């Protein structure tokens, strides 16, 4: 028995799992309908796929949510997992699920997939026969993704960096890399049976003034960590940044460099997709303004040429959205995509050149780290601040880089910290901003820059 299979049997021997049948699950994946695979839909390249967010504790409520989504002409269904499951606390999730089932009140902020189990959940997934994307935020997702794939969920979001640095203060980063290696290997293994399982990185990170160079570097590194384990279909992503031209440039550079770096490790055969998140920062409390913002995001996603868009709702600032509001966003986004036509091609060669140079310089610094494996190189570079994510709560993050917006609301680096931004790029970034300011003014600018959409 392989070492991976031994580990899988330990993981699936968890007391919350009801007799995992490896052979039956393999047969299921092998013969699963192609419509369940998002990789199949990406391959058709018919349109930008629309995917909302959403998860409720009980089976019935999740089912009802999916009915609303399907009526609104959804392309990809989400399964958002509750926060107890994300922290591997399945017993609390179980208790809260029981309370949610007994009363009309939701005691969980998502679907406790491990407690529902794959035999039950698979019924829902095969009933709707749509591709489903697993949204969680779990540093140790080994058990969760096993149950997800066995349920017919063939897209797994996350990664060791993007699901840790924005969400956790002190979960050990080195452990996260190893837990995600397991995820990649299991996804790669199942990908040989039918259409490939798609992996997606979480580009928004903290959604707070993260410069595009950092976003892209982390997207590329999570992509490489995944492809080197044998994953054949991967989505890089980012969220709306606040300036249309910066989004267009970011989209183009991300696509080009993803292809380039995949080729560098001999993975030209992998399919790489681009995903765009509607605005992930602080949302307006006014619901009508929120709708306008969402619509603008859809237009920019089209300019970017994204393969998939992930939507927000008009209730974002208020709390967990109702199924009605959520479905409405899907319908609105589809409407906008249907009527948008004749989009111009916009190119800013100078910005592309500057951004590309920054990404290459950081990637080179990562590859030059003396560690023996890619994940250890990345680990060392996060620790030393070569990769620095603004506003990450994690203790390992360096927090030396400072970013603000220029007059066009592009995110600019005014203090590079330890990040190896080339001197000419750094000088350009700073030249876009008014730097005759003291720290007090800069702090006030940052506060303003975070709230631009409110």
């Amino acid at each position, binding site marked *: 028995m392989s070492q991976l299979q031994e580990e899988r049997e330990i993981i699936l021997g968890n007391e919350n799992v009801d007799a995992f049948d490896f052979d039956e699950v393999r047969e299921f994946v092998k013969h699963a309908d192609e419509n369940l695979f998002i990789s199949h839909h990406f391959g058709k390249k018919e349109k930008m796929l629309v995917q909302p967010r959403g998860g409720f504790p009980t089976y019935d409520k999740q089912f009802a949510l999916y009915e609303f989504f399907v009526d609104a002409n959804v392309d990809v269904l989400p399964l958002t997992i509750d926060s107890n499951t994300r922290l591997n606390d399945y017993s609390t999730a179980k208790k809260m699920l029981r309370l949610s089932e007994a009363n009309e009140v939701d005691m969980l902020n998502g679907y406790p997939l491990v407690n529902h189990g794959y035999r039950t959940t698979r019924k829902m997934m095969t009933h709707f026969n749509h591709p489903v994307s697993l949204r969680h935020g779990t540093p140790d997702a080994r058990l969760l993704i096993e149950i997800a794939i066995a349920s017919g969920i063939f897209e797994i979001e996350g990664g060791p960096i993007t699901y840790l640095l924005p*969400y956790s*203060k*002190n979960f050990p980063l080195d452990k996260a890399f190893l837990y995600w290696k397991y995820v990649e290997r299991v996804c790669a293994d199942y990908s040989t049976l039918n259409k490939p399982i798609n992996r997606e990185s979480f580009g928004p990170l*903290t959604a*707070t003034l993260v410069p595009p160079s950092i976003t892209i570097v982390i997207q590329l590194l999570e992509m490489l960590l995944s492809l080197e384990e044998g994953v054949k279909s991967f989505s890089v992503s980012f969220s709306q940044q606040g300036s249309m031209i910066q989004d267009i440039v970011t989209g183009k550079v991300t696509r080009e460099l993803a292809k380039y770096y995949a080729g560098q490790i001999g993975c030209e055969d992998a399919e790489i997709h681009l995903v765009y998140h509607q605005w992930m920062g602080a949302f307006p409390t006014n619901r009508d303004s929120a709708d306008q913002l969402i619509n603008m995001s859809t237009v920019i996603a089209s300019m970017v040429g994204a393969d998939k868009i992930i939507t927000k709702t008009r209730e974002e600032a208020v709390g967990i959205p109702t199924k009605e509001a959520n479905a409405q966003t899907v319908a609105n986004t589809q409407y906008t995509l249907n009527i948008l036509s004749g989009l111009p091609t916009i190119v800013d060669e100078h910005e592309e050149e500057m951004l590309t140079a920054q990404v290459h310089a950081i990637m080179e610094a990562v590859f030059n780290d003396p560690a023996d494996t890619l994940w250890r190189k990345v680990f060392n570079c996060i620790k030393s601040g070569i990769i620095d994510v*603004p*506003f*990450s*709560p994690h*203790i390992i993050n360096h*927090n030396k880089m*400072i970013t603000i917006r220029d007059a066009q609301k592009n995110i600019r680096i005014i203090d590079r910290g330890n990040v190896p931004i080339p001197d000419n790029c750094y000088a350009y970034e700073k030249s876009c901003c008014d730097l005759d300011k*003291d*720290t*007090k003014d*800069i*702090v*006030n600018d*940052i*506060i303003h820059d*975070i709230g631009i959409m409110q």
Partner: protein
Amino acid sequence: MKIVTGVIGNDIHVVANRLMDLSLNARGYEVFNLGVNTYLEEFFDAAVETGADVLLISSLNGEAEGWSREVKPLKSTYKSLDKLIMMIGGNLTVGSGNAEDIVPRYKKYGFDLVCHQVDLNTGLDMLEDYIKEHRAA
């Protein structure tokens, strides 16, 4: 002047904490930032370890109220913290409340300076004034 700061409790709101760090450094403090999700005991331990002059606790989700009740009894178990300047700021209550009620309540909990929904720089000016007076006295 040494200052220990951080966000109290199960509160992951990091933005203001980073800005506070930046502002305090610019004002010339030696900053020991414990970040988000910090428990009361960790604050006092850090104050002892660093020999801090000021402890600045912040809160956004409002759970500071619950923790603050334990400030006096816990602080009294440490021997060397009598001269520590105690400051708290942010959103200091769950739901709504006004500063006239909140400030005296927190002073009773053992804080010298209390800033409920006060602008960051205004709060740090208050701290500077307090330190000046304190030193003159």
